[in-house]
């Protein structure tokens, strides 16, 4: 099974919502299990530790699928890869932020942030712009 086939199969499995469950032989550190049980019973973190575990696992797997789909897409279509600035601008628009109307600020911030933190993400860029604006206000 190559990467594309694996991704297709993961998407197919994640789309199944029939509710069928299985007892697994997955081994959890005992202390982690007990900490999760307290998070559920004392702080209402989730309806149950099973739900908490399944939700966290789904979040992790779905994120991996999304990131992998994008990475494979960029490999096939390099021109489709958005810049850090473009991603930050998209998030500003999704957030309904007035920064969505200031692509010039976001572009400059993306350059500045990336120069200092090569692994920065789009939220780092938006935070940088907001901080800069707050300083000069």
């Amino acid at each position, binding site marked *: 099974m190559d990467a594309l086939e694996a991704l297709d199969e993961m998407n197919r499995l994640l789309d199944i919502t029939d509710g069928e469950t299985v007892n697994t032989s997955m081994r959890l550190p005992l202390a982690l299990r007990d900490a999760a049980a307290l998070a559920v019973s004392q702080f209402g973190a989730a309806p149950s530790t099973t739900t908490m575990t399944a939700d966290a696992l789904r979040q992790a797997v779905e994120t991996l699928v999304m990131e992998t789909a994008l990475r494979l897409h960029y490999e096939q279509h390099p021109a489709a890869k958005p810049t850090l600035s473009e991603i930050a601008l*998209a998030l500003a628009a999704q957030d309904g932020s007035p920064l969505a109307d200031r692509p010039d600020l976001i572009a400059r911030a993306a350059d500045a942030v990336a120069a200092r933190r090569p692994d920065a993400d789009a939220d780092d860029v938006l935070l940088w712009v907001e901080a800069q604006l707050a300083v000069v206000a």
Partner: protein
Amino acid sequence: MRSIVLDNEAVQALTNPRNPKHRAVVAHLAGAAARRRRGRVVEAVVPTAVRVEAAWDRAAPSAAAINRFPVRDHTLDSAAADVAAQIQRATSTGVADAHIGATVRSLSSTEVVVLTSDPADIAAVCAPAQATIVNV
């Protein structure tokens, strides 16, 4: 939780890497992935009537690429059809846009974003539900 709803134009742009809006729509998905890395729950949703309008057949070999992006179907079931019919009657929009409105009204997400090329029509079908409408 944030749900990002795609309209026909957004789907068309996502499907075709040569579409001039392709990179912009991909940027929205990349932003969603970045937020998920930070622990936020963000999903992409396509109303099935939009898939019909955009000719997105998940079973077709030509759809293999777009199928890899995790975009969840919001089906036009009986309840959604009733709501969409009410929206269509009130706004005289097309079936796909009416289904977008029904989708937005039914989502339990705390934040709903619609990617569209027609903000005015989408605002009409979504009201009175709260949604951030992003022009792509």
